[in-house]
């Protein structure tokens, strides 16, 4: 009994538990369909590239994973979420493709400017968005979600503006490669790996983690101890903006076009869900990046599984919304008190029975 409690109290319990649950559902589903029970885990090479549901999850989960990195930091430092990330992804797409295709062109097979400028400008735009959000939150003391609401709405609209309300296609192989394959490995997987690597190296070799958590837990005390809380929060939002840009880069290159209306749609929910599923409190403070990342891939696994079960992408938000609510309800103080009381009652009943 007590060992079970110990396990459930581990920080990574929630994400790993849900991951295993999703895998189990897949195994059962495969068995029901008459496939080999472990189809889910099989990785093969088809047409010279890696193939398999697991690979698909890692590939498709790239955007959520990258967003989760930024979102984790934002949640930890400011006890609020950045809901503009989806729009910023779309804005990246608009900016990058507009530059690469030249304004007004909708379908090109040659770059108007070098690829690196397109990507650079897109990422820069994303960072500026982060800067804007961070400024409102850290220096104007506006609730994070309200502050990011502005770009949540305007980001996509500006993207549309850049593309003249049209879908801009960039049919150049080197552009498509970012969303395609390097050798036999999907490029997004490599990009995600690189982002994760950089993030963990930064957290390992700088004091960023300590700064962010300290500010997130106790702003006043952090100030007395010599931290500049506002700067730290600003930095977190800029990083989150950059992550949104990178996620936008992958999403845009996947469809080699700037479909501003659809790139990054509902991604903010995935990112926030990943953070919550990773066992991080949405009230800020301590964070666990590994948890968020497992959370992100778990969500993708849920998506892929739902798709396999015949639920369309338009419908899947229903399930995700239910999962979010369940997680936050379990995390909420009154619910915790309720469970505690329940546990005490059980113990008392036990004691009474023994007596």
């Amino acid at each position, binding site marked *: 009994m007590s060992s079970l409690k110990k396990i459930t109290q581990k920080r990574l319990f929630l994400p790993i538990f849900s991951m295993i649950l999703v895998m189990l559902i897949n195994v059962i589903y495969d068995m029901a369909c008459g496939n080999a029970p472990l189809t889910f885990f099989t990785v093969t090479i088809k047409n010279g590239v890696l193939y398999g549901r697991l690979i698909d999850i890692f590939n498709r989960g790239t955007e959520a994973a990258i967003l989760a990195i930024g979102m984790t930091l934002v949640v930890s430092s400011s006890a609020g*979420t950045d*809901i503009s990330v989806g729009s910023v992804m779309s804005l990246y797409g608009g900016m990058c493709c507009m530059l690469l295709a030249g304004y007004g062109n909708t379908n090109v097979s040659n770059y108007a400017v070098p690829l690196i400028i397109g990507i650079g400008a897109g990422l820069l735009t994303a960072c500026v968005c982060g800067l804007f959000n961070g400024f*409102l939150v850290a220096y*104007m*003391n*506006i*609730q994070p*979600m*309200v*502050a990011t*609401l*502005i*770009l*949540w*709405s*305007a980001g*996509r*609209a*500006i993207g*549309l*503006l850049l593309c*003249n*309300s049209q879908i801009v296609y960039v049919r150049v192989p080197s552009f498509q490669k970012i969303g395609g394959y390097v050798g036999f490995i999907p490029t997004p997987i490599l990009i995600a790996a690189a982002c994760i690597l950089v993030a963990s190296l930064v957290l390992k070799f700088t004091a960023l983690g300590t700064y962010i958590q300290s500010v997130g837990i106790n702003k006043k005390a952090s100030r007395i101890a010599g931290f500049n809380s506002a700067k730290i929060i600003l930095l977190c939002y800029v990083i989150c903006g950059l992550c949104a840009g990178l996620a936008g880069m992958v999403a845009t290159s996947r469809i080699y076009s700037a479909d501003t209306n659809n790139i990054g749609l*509902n991604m903010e*929910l995935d990112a*926030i869900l990943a953070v919550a599923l990773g066992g991080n409190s*949405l009230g800020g403070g301590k964070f666990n990046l590994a948890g968020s990342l497992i959370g992100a891939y778990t969500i993708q696994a849920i998506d892929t599984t739902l798709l396999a079960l015949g639920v*369309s992408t*338009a*419908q*899947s*938000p*229903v*399930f*995700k*919304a*239910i999962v*979010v*609510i369940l997680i*936050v*309800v379990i995390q*909420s*103080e*009154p*619910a915790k008190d309720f469970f505690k009381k329940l546990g005490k009652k059980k113990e008392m009943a036990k004691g009474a029975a023994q007596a």
Partner: protein
Amino acid sequence: MKKTKINSNSLLLLITVVLFVVMYAGGCIIYSSKGFTHLQTFLNILINNAGLICVASGMTCVMLTGGIDISVGSLVAMDCMILAVGIEQWGWSSPVLMVLILVIGVVFGLVQGFCIAYLDIQPFIVTMAGMFFARGMTAVICRNQVSIVSDKIFTTLAGLKIELPFGGYMNKKGILQVPYLRITVIVALIVVILVYLMLKYTKFGRSIYAIGGNQQSATLMGLNVKKTKLKAYVLSSFLTSIGGICYCLNTMAGTTQQATGLEMNAISSSVIGGTLLTGGVGNVFGSLVGVLINGTISSLVKTNGKLISSWSNIITAILLCFFIILQSVFAKIKDSKK
């Protein structure tokens, strides 16, 4: 002490009203050749935004408590889809469906309100989940666009013109154009008036202001904060459902992508109309002016003809940003005075 000074809150509202007048007058001058000066242009703004007016009224109540409800846009979409699918595929009559929608609204609000008031979860997270839930449900009900054509009551209601006895003009062909309103506008205006009276003259209404002013004080003064909050969210979802019906009477269709960003319009209308994000200050007439400003912006963008429609989104966002910063600055000034 006795002399009347304009406090920052009425100043915010004043800025809004002036902004609206200037914007509208500017539109009249620039686009007079395109018929912007006709009374009907103004009435059309009301007609196009009748649903939004209802939604914004509910949003204002929630924001007065210091909360927020971003599920409204998706809820409107779900309402429209239920109406469309209900009429065209299930063959239900529209009055029954309207009652069903109102009931769904109340239940939706109850669940959200319970999570926020009694479980102490951030309103934003709860209503965001609500937003995705409703949007997803819309797709679950039907994935395609469904137009409403077969229900007589519904089409009659939608087609009903309430003509005004004044303000008519001769068009180029010499036919008298009589300005008109739609039934939705009447509903919306009744909603605004009722909500105004409710906020001003009922215990519930005053409790909403008290909670927004200082939640801790409200508790100490013996108000039931949790129950009031719950009721506010139920009211918001209920009014959103009324707004959903109005919206549907305008569009006569249900699609999965309908009313995207409506929550943004409702929030910005409230904020522009002088409702403080921190709660406690604002009223529903301000929000009405806010809606009119939003409507004027999109009307101007449309009348221009060359600008693409996302401009109205961008301008609204800029205005919202401006007012949010203004509020924050005013709050800082107030703090430093103490």
